[in-house]
């Protein structure tokens, strides 16, 4: 187990480094110049003195060769210093740190909702013996995936907030404001979970060990929950790991639609202001979350299926 964990951690570090490096190179190659953006920010479209620009460039180190800038920034990033925002001049890490809690709250609630909704739909669809109900339930996920997030958000606001006045449409204050954005995020995510889980439940229910369980006299509920679900949950868990990263991306749209503070808003405004250090910080943060969630998923696998640790060891040898 220790060896397995060490190997996974090493992989995680490589992923983080790659995310940092690739985003650094891409942002550097973009035509936009953070210094121009920074200088023109206070000028309302007026002309900037080239000498002044050069001075700012020198101050921030933008005139150093690419390799030097890369190594310096990477060194700083390792110690947690992601540089300063060119828009606000505050440390990127600090801004992200402040924006993280509301986004984490939102995505965590959305993820829980998605897993609960997705599992419920998948279990009901495979459990029911009414053919029309099964068909209906199995077609829901496709619909949920197909519908755009912002449209779902707007519809939910229209219905639950403006018409029924159940939940507030905008803002950050209190748990009630969390409901609509979390639901909006949860629908496409839950739909994917339902799709994968339903498929693997149907596969699991066809396995010979389910036949054995039925031959024991076990009832349908028991067969679904004690036998099929556990075996079917592995592929669904993999998807949840991947979707957790996806949720961060969707949060950009949802936080904008619902006017919530968080990483999404920070990202949107950083991109708008060509705030490259901030964008880079968001990319690294996204990679970090993705890596952590998938590490967690990998650690949960062996608890669900004992064969997996063995397989992991075997792979480490090859």
């Amino acid at each position, binding site marked *: 187990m220790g060896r397995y964990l060490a190997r996974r951690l090493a992989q995680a570090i490589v992923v983080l480094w790659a995310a940092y490096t690739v985003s650094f190179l891409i942002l550097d190659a973009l035509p936009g110049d953070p210094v121009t953006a920074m200088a023109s920010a206070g000028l309302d479209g007026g002309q900037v003195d080239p000498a002044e620009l050069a001075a700012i460039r020198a101050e921030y180190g933008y005139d150093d060769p690419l390799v030097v800038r890369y190594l310096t920034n990477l060194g700083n990033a390792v110690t947690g210093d992601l540089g300063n925002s060119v828009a606000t001049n505050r440390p990127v890490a600090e801004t992200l740190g402040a924006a993280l809690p509301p986004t984490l709250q939102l995505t965590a609630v959305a993820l829980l909702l998605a897993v609960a909704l997705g599992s419920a739909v998948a279990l009901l669809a495979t459990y029911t013996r009414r053919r029309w109900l099964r068909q209906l339930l199995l077609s829901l996920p496709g619909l949920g995936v197909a519908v755009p997030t912002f449209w779902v958000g707007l519809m939910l606001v229209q219905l639950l907030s403006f018409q029924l006045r159940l939940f507030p449409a905008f803002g950050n204050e209190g748990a009630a404001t969390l409901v609509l954005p979390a639901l909006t995020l949860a629908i496409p995510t839950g739909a994917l979970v339902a799709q994968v889980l339903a498929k693997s439940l149907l596969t699991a229910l066809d396995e010979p060990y389910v036949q054995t369980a039925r031959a*024991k006299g076990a009832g349908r509920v028991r067969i679904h929950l004690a036998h099929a679900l556990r075996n079917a949950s592995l592929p669904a868990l993999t998807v949840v790991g991947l979707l957790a990263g996806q949720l961060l991306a969707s949060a950009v749209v949802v936080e904008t639609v619902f006017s919530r503070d968080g990483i999404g808003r920070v990202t949107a405004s950083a991109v708008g202001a060509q705030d490259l250090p901030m964008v880079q910080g968001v990319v690294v943060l996204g990679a970090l979350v993705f890596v952590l969630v998938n590490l967690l998923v990998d650690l949960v696998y062996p608890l669900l299926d004992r064969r997996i640790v063995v397989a992991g060891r075997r792979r480490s040898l090859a």
Partner: protein
Amino acid sequence: MSAPLPDGAPLLKIRDLTVSYATRSGPVPAVRGVDLDVFPGEVVALVGESGSGKSTTAHAVVGLLPAGGRIDGGSIHFSGRDLTGASEKELQLVRGARIGLVPQDPTVSLNPTRRIGAQVAEVLRVHGLAGRREAAERAVALLGRAGLSEPAVRARQFPHELSGGMRQRALIAVAIAAGPQLLVADEPTSALDVTVQRRILDHLDTLTRELGTAVLLVTHDLGVAADRAQRIAVMSGGRIVETGPTEQVLTDPRDPYTQRLLASAPSLAAARRAASPVAVRKGDVPAREPLVVAEGLSKDFPLPRGGSGPRVLHAVRNVSFTVERGRTTALVGESGSGKSTTARMVLALTEPTAGRVTFDGTDVTGVRGAALRAFRRRAQLVYQNPYASLDPRFSIEEVVTEPLRAFRVGDRASRATRARELLGRVSLPASVLQRRPAELSGGQRQRVAIARALALAPELVVCDEPVSALDVSVQAQVLELLAELQADTGVSYLFISHDLAVVRQVAHAVVVLRDGEVVESGSTDAIFDAPTHEYTRELLAAIPGTAARIPAPGGTR
């Protein structure tokens, strides 16, 4: 639950049972009017080939037909009650508690995510026969009863930590847990090695006799039926064509199908054909040097690191044998004996850790490049599973001519001619050429695989369990075909099998492997008539059908 059975009444009484499967082109009948009785404490074997409806009949009894299966008519009276009209809830009370099922393939029939003990205890819990703690204790006792050593340890293990035989014992523990009156055993050992098979069937015999449980034993193997059952019912095409006491069915079969089945059953045929195995055409003793000489072959595989540093598995250790020209050498052993690894080394598919292989006088160990390709052309392989070894997207013509295309032999027209000729040689009509593998039966597919192996007119064909996936009557035909081809073309076979009965029919020389080492080798007659090693004797004794026939002199003890 139901009134006690009157004396002399059958425990299970099936009358005029009709089952069909829904397919896209309408319902297809699988069982057509089956009558069958099983009396309390009796072992009845339901024998037939794949598609005969034997498994469908057995599954109908426990109400567990596969998706699309439907009972169209007839009755299944169990303990006086008709199960065909029972609701799912009522069936749940019968399953596990009063009828136990021993499934076909133990390697996939246990839930991989749950401990063995919990899976046995579940039967008791489901039927409310024990509380949580008591069920766990009784599960351990049941595992011991089913013949597992250290049952308390096994109960805490997961299925993948147990061998196939151990898993089947765990499944037997599940089946007997609630003390049912009837066990339905669906090919309970066909996925296991012969010696394991024998031990498990012996144990099942003892157990059911002690418990007074009746058994409906479904099997494709007449030998198994002959050894275990008091009565045999033979199924073909969804009907029972013959039923009667075991003695009578074996010695005086009335139905032509039963007669054919008996004639082709390799295990029962072995004794009868001992004097003249199909392939052993006497005369023309090869004067030239052997085609293949394997000397001191060894193969090690690294194992996951243990506490004491790197470990290796000695899959094959110091194995030597020869394959004479135009003759057949058989490698015999159970799973894990190293027979397939040895064959792969002979074909230069795996590099040996030590030893060498000489083919027609040249050393082919570790050859590469052009020499390897030249060797490939002269040595071909027929795989075990004809369902998996043919590309489903190729037409049969493409399958058969692929080796010719790979070696750029001939042009389009000459390859097509060759394909037709090869199919004729394996007794398939030319109309098959344009079909896909999925449209052919298992036996036909294996013929196609043999035709493909012969396409380049190789000198050596390695047959890796070529008939073990086939029905017995088809097995016999394919073995005949291999022998004929050898007589016509002078090809040599390296024949790999776990089935001694099959080996006896085709091989000139036999090499018995166990745990990667040769325990005994010699001519087929010597091995079968006067085995010197204990393990060979055990293998011979484990051939199903042994109990029913007169022991060969000096053979089984």
